[in-house]
């Protein structure tokens, strides 16, 4: 691809296209992994998220399956990568920071402890321009939080 797509790429950065096309950790995990569904009926996006926890509530592995737009698939895929190795608490903090990022386009916590992870997620910040697409980006994170909390379903806000 060339510069001809600069106007499109400022929102759909290469990493989004790549993760959208080739999602990482796109699979199910068997028990005892925790599991939750996320549903955005408005646009038909649907993800299922699995997390396997190990000692000290640390996330050993996260995976997902689902269908939806490039934003929601890329977001889920990037999520499964960034939360790996985090504690449940850290993952929730990251989820909060991520929601701020995609809702406002700003990243007040980018200088904090999760700086590196948030940098990886930052390409998704462009959706802040599209309030109705923010849900696509946050859907998997809601499902993750539901799974961590032991709930079965989450509906994207």
């Amino acid at each position, binding site marked *: *691809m060339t510069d*001809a*797509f600069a*106007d*499109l*790429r*400022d*929102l*759909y950065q290469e990493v989004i*296209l790549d993760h*959208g096309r080739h999602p990482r950790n796109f699979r199910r995990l068997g028990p005892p992994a925790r599991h939750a569904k996320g549903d955005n*009926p*408005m*646009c*038909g*996006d649907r993800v299922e998220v699995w997390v396997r926890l190990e000692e000290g509530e640390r996330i050993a592995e996260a995976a997902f399956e689902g*269908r*939806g*737009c*490039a*934003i929601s698939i890329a977001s889920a895929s990037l999520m499964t990568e960034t939360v790996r190795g985090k504690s449940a608490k850290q993952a929730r903090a990251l989820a909060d920071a991520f929601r701020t990022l995609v809702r406002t386009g700003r990243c007040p916590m980018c200088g904090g402890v999760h700086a590196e992870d948030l940098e990886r997620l930052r390409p998704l910040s462009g959706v802040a321009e*599209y309030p109705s*697409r923010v849900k*696509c980006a946050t859907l998997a994170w809601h499902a993750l939080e539901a799974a961590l909390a032991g709930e079965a379903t989450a509906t994207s806000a």
Partner: protein
Amino acid sequence: MSQAAIAMVHPGFDVFAIRREFPILAESVRGKPLIYLDSAASAQKPRAVIEAMVQAMEHQYANVHRGLHWMSERTTEAFETARDAVARFLNAPSREEIVFTKNATEAINLVAHAYGRGVMDPAKAVLISAMEHHANIIPWQMLRDERGIELRVCPITAEGELDWAGFERLLADGRVGLVAITHMSNVLGTVTPAERIARAAHDAGALVLFDGSQAAVHRRVDVQAIGADFYVFTGHKLYGPTGIGVLWARAELLERMPPFLGGGDMISSVSFEKAEWARIPHKFEAGTPPILEGIGLAAAIAWVERVGLEAIEEHERALTDFALARLSAIEGVRIFGRAQDRGGVVTFALDRAHAHDVATLLDRQGIAVRAGHHCAEPLMRVLGVDSTARASFAAYTTRAEIDALAEALERVRRFFA
């Protein structure tokens, strides 16, 4: 048909002159001139509509009915003139048959309550089609769940037309009390054979309601010629303001139906024990009506009549043919709805790209299309998709805009390739 050819048929029709009447079309989006292809969701407003509303607010406004003073008398006159305009627009036998609601959705709910709960035999069924908008599904589901009436759904063909054999089959047992069906699908563009539907419904002992939210915008509607019993449409899609919809029903039905909402203006006398209903249509118009919106809608109808519904229909038909040809030629584009008789909406999907991504990437090129289920989720299931994109056309849409859409879509395809 080329723009020149249209101009020959309708010498007065000049899309560029029309565009100049819509201030918003001069706007830019993301540094590009706005290409607004979402008119089926809501149309833009010509200056005549804006000015009529401003004129009222600046020079002649008061609450209507019962005001004995000049401002109220004049405003009542202006508002009631809107009723005349709508009656003429639909060729309704009488102005008393025009009920103003807040939108098409309320109009259908009104029928579901006042006719469905108030008059219809609960042993009867309601028959809708597989291509209805939620506005013509949910009110009947609510009626079903509350009163136990049966809800039947007529299938559609692969082309997106009403499955006529299926339709007749569903009517055959004589148990359908009301057929409630779209006059034009907001997704497939399909225009349904209204006259034929009405005849079949009546032969089977059913009444018929048409959801004309889309149809009334794209072609001339004659409720008498159709043989309709109820007809609804909505102001904001007809170049008018939000906040106003229309229910037309035969006077005899309105007379038999109990009121829906209660309040001021819909009674003729009230004590704490008992209220007597006002005459139609007022019986169905509780509270302060959409006064400014009625004035705006009257201006919109006058505008449409001036341009000519036939000219608009022909312009849109040419655009639709052109769009279907242009979009079909793009690799990986799939089009939904290939009915013989269709209006100016083209719904499509692109292989390997989700409709939401398509819409967003078109937006970045200044092009507004809709993506999602278009308030017709059950139809999406029938089509086997989660979500589609839709371009829809109006009197102000140009071929150049459709060219731009096709080119932008081609870019999106390559971007995702």
